[in-house]
């Protein structure tokens, strides 16, 4: 039998603004085991009183009716495996945003307390998770990023398996003689130390290297990935704890740039081809082997161009400067010209740019190259437009180098899956139309055929999902290693355009995340963003109807399906957002401290005044990561809003289950607000697409509302950023006014 203790704080103005005796009465009506007040619950004495009640067995579940869970988290921390804790924000959600000692303020506080007790009464303790966890880190790709990742993970004491599809390690940098300077005075090229790095990795007893090897399958979850490789010596299987994907990038296909002469003249080459040439210590015209007297570099060849690569590859300007310097080392008499749109040499690379600029026989100028023409024999004609040398100027060159951008060596896992599904539907679809549409979709997606790299046995596809432009990443500013597959981290140029030193750093960063994921798996704890959360999702599968919504909507590919479509849980892939819980129409998914019935209980615990009392009730389901902090910021600034609103924080708006809307409306709640973060391409959701999913679900509900003769306006979705606290009063008050205008929920009292 659960023993709930309610601990009421009267500090921070709570005692002055609210009738605490009335709150105690509410607690007693809910038949809690213990109820106490303290003038400053977060003080060592206050926290001590809570601990004493736990230690002497008076209570095993703690309700702290004080300030927000975002305040004093360190003070109010109890063993999560022993004590269930719920916090009620009397301070932020009642005292700071409502007039003191007002009837409506008290009703709000009473409700908040009832809701907290109701939720706590449904909470259970997490069960400690133990499983055998592999310490091994699998690194896919033996370029600079992969080598550094291997070295980092091995250095931290982890066994490493490094897989490379080519015959040798080192990747694109292996053959380059010299690299850009990283140390003062930043004006001369530095020796390339990639070969030393390769030797270090090959000589490390903790690192097993497989070259000419591909992955044939990866099943399982972090800590327990079962990996199968196709090596030269045959198939090989092992278990890995985490994976770093460092598969690099390839140069953009220059044959798509015929206007720049590629393909029509052998003397038009890419910067990668020039690197190959310079690695051999020879600068030659491919047409006749002669030494070119004039070499012209075309920057942004196919880059920053909506018809080719819309993005900038970030390293081509530096690469060109490096190549100009190398050419002049080989032969100072060669004239070099660089035609650029913007010279992009950030940081101290600026000094190297200046050094190259000051070399004789070097021209660097802004312009756009319209056309490169010429055939194998004579000089090439390079036609410029909008250049600083004038408009429509034509230059001659013996060798033209196209500084093409980079394309990530990544497969779009979701697209591969979509192709697979489309092919299946095209064959076995229910109707002729369905089969035809599926065939058309399969045609569109056909270029994804056979692109798999990781071969993940995941319901949502065999590789990492990708962002715009094909880079696998999600929160690339704040949390750059958070791919959407737990335990698999992208590093280097596959993740974002970057230069070799940055790729090296990226290898270390991704290795850090891989090590961390393994450590978390050992404790059964979640990784980012709910790092350390020990609560695992629970599926009551006897009632599952195989609708597959959970397996489709999980942003992290946690769930696989068996042949019937029943979800198969991989708990160590789970990030605890609860999106599956929101998706499930049977409400069979829950977490120890979060679940459909917990939130339903909160909604049912609220008091709903009769219609004649003219006190409408509104439930605001709010994302606890962005919307709720915005509300608390508004409260801290003592802004005020309608007292009719009862806020229920959600882990993610995507965990919103539509049964809550039914619960609320059938109880006579007059309106609901769903407040989440910004969706779309530049989404801010920490779980990628929570607010978007909530909106889709709501779309389905609104039809039902109309059928029930309830106004769809009773439910409103709001996108709110973390910093938009100023909008809170306006949004809340406007919605309250709208609900007042609509009149009472006709289901009130039924």
């Amino acid at each position: 039998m659960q023993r709930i203790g309610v601990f009421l704080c009267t500090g921070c103005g709570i005692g002055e603004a609210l009738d605490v005796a009335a709150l105690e009465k509410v607690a007693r009506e809910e038949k809690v085991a213990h109820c106490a007040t303290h003038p400053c619950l977060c003080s060592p004495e206050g926290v001590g009183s809570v601990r004493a009640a736990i230690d002497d067995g008076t209570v095993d579940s703690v309700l702290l009716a004080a300030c927000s869970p975002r305040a004093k988290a360190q003070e109010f921390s109890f063993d999560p495996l022993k004590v269930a804790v719920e916090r009620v924000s009397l301070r932020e959600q009642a005292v700071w945003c409502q007039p003191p000692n007002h009837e409506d303020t008290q009703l709000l506080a009473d409700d908040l307390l009832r809701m907290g007790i109701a939720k706590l009464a449904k909470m259970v303790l997490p069960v400690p998770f133990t499983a055998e966890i592999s310490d091994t880190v699998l690194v896919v790709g033996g370029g600079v990023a992969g080598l550094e990742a291997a070295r980092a993970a091995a250095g931290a004491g982890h066994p490493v398996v490094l897989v490379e599809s080519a015959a040798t390690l080192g990747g694109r940098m292996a053959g380059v003689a010299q690299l850009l300077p990283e140390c003062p005075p930043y004006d001369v090229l530095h020796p390339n130390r990639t070969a030393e790095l390769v030797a270090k990795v090959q000589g490390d007893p903790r690192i097993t290297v497989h070259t000419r090897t591909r992955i044939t399958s990866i099943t399982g979850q972090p800590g327990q990935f079962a990996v199968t490789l196709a090596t030269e010596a045959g198939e090989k299987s092992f278990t890995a704890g985490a994976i770093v994907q460092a598969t690099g990038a390839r140069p953009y296909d220059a044959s798509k740039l015929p206007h720049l002469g590629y393909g029509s003249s052998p003397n038009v080459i890419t910067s990668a081809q020039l690197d190959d040439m310079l690695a051999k210590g020879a600068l030659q015209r491919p047409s006749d082997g002669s030494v070119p007297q004039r070499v012209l570099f075309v920057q942004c060849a196919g880059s920053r161009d909506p018809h080719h690569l819309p993005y900038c590859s970030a390293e081509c300007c530096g690469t060109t400067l490096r190549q100009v310097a190398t050419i002049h080392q080989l032969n100072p008499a060669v004239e070099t010209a660089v035609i650029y749109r913007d010279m992009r040499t950030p940081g101290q690379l600026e000094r190297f740019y200046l050094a190259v600029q000051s070399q004789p026989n070097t021209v660097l100028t802004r312009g756009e190259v319209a056309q490169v023409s010429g055939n194998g024999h004579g000089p090439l004609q390079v036609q410029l437009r909008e250049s600083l040398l004038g408009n429509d100027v034509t230059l001659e060159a013996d060798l033209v180098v196209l500084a093409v951008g980079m394309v990530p060596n990544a497969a779009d896992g979701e697209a591969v899956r979509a192709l697979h599904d489309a092919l299946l539907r095209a064959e076995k679809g229910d109707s002729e139309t369905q089969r035809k549409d599926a065939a058309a979709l399969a045609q569109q997606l056909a270029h994804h055929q056979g692109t798999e790299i990781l071969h993940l046995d995941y319901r949502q596809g065999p590789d990492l999902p990708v962002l715009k432009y094909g880079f696998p990443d999600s929160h690339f500013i704040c949390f750059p290693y958070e791919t959407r597959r737990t335990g698999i981290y992208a590093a280097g140029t596959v993740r974002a355009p970057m230069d070799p030193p940055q790729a090296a750093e990226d290898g270390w960063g991704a290795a850090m995340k891989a090590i961390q994921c393994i450590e978390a798996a050992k404790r059964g704890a979640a990784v980012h963003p709910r790092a350390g959360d020990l609560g695992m999702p629970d599926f009551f599968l006897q009632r599952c109807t195989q609708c597959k919504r959970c397996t489709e909507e999980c942003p992290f590919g946690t769930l696989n399906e068996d042949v019937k479509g029943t979800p198969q849980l991989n708990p160590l892939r789970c990030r605890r957002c609860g999106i599956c819980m929101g998706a499930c129409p049977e409400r069979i998914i829950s977490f120890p401290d979060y679940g459909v019935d917990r939130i339903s209980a909160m909604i049912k615990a609220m008091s709903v005044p009769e219609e004649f009392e003219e006190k409408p009730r509104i439930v605001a389901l709010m994302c606890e990561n962005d919307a709720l902090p915005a509300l608390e910021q508004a409260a801290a600034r003592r802004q005020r809003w309608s007292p009719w609103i009862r806020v229920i924080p959600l882990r993610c708006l995507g965990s919103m289950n539509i049964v809550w809307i039914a619960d609320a409306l059938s109880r006579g709640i007059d309106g609901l607000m769903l407040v989440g973060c910004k969706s779309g391409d530049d989404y801010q959701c920490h779980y990628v697409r929570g607010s978007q999913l909530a909106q889709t679900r709501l779309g389905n509900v609104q039809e039902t509302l109309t059928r029930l003769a309830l106004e769809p306006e009773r439910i409103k979705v709001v996108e709110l950023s973390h910093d938009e606290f100023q909008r809170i009063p306006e949004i809340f008050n406007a919605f309250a006014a709208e609900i007042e205008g609509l009149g009472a929920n006709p289901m009130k009292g039924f």
Partner: protein
Amino acid sequence: MSASPGAHPLLVVGAGISGVTAALEAAEAGRKVVLVEREPYVGGRITRTHHYFPKMCPPSCGMEINTRRLERNANVRVCVNAEVVNARRSDAGWSVTIRHRPAYVNERCTACGACSEVCPASVPDPFNMGLTQVKAIRLAHGNAWPRRFTLDRHACPDGCRACVDACTYDAIDLTAEAREEQVEVGAVVVTTGWSPYPLDKLPELLGGKDPDVIANVHMERLASPSGPTGGKILRPSDGAPPRRVAFVQCAGSRDVNHLPYCSAVCCLASLKQAVYVKEQLPDAEVTIYYIDRRAPGRNEDVLTQVAAMEGVRLVKGKVGKITRADGLLKLRVEDVERGVLVEAEADLVVLATGMVSNLKEEPSPFGILLDEDGFGLPSHDLGLSVAGVARRPEDVAASVRDATGAAARAIVATERRA
């Protein structure tokens, strides 16, 4: 790998986005970490940034997750109002002295605000770069974490105890004294960040001389809802919305007389700020004067977006001089495209000033080798890393990347020593 019991903690110096990241990544892998920050809150410069490029999202969104990670992870010990004053090599790795400034407001503070209400003294708000006045005792900013008030003791009137009397939690001690603490640590990550290049070093551009010539960092505060104008972009001279806004790129950067290097973020900061202006003031004319438009990677999207905006012009040209005449700011620009010297007018000028590594003015006690601009150089010693802008000018995404890598280096260093 697992943290051996009794292993020495890692030390992270500076709790901006780089330091917070390095500390958290190591702590979540089971390592003990001491995170030292001289300000009263963590987050550093990003807390004063309105939005990040290229997503135009508030930095507080990511920091919300990071502070939650910090307050729920017992492996990290956060020391705000503290500095490392001494360090020497030891068997553990490093033996360091941390100086804690006097804790006038202690951890019993509930951030209720009663002290601030009665405080009679005001100071220029350092969070808003002196653009407004705040009480001497206050929460440093809306999302400050640790969520504890801070007191500028030097601003207290003689004998005033108003805050002490108002506090019912015994959280204020005006007699608190500084203390020093000796800590053995296994490895060190230095993430001491940057300061903006001072405006008053650019007198030819009226930097520090005209209220309507502001720096990019000021523009971040003007656009922020928590800033001095509640998020309204207004001319500091008269509080009116500007009609013609000029952004001067490379103001004191890529310039041998100032900062010879490129700060790597200013182009994108100005492009982003052009969006702030156009979103609020659609009729305002915005001109960005640049040498090169540096928007690497997917940041190119921001350039594409801004270049297509009506009322925004990007002009390749170096602004050599700014004067004030007839109530307007006059910019002398060498228009490189057309090869002419032109004079342009504006009523608000934003100087895109660069970043100066804080190691330049205040070298750390760890003996880090610096380049001539004060950026920390990488060493072969994995037990001493420099990350973030203390290492090189870079944006937040790159700082987070480098800081995560630095955490791995620190762990490897302690593994080797174990």
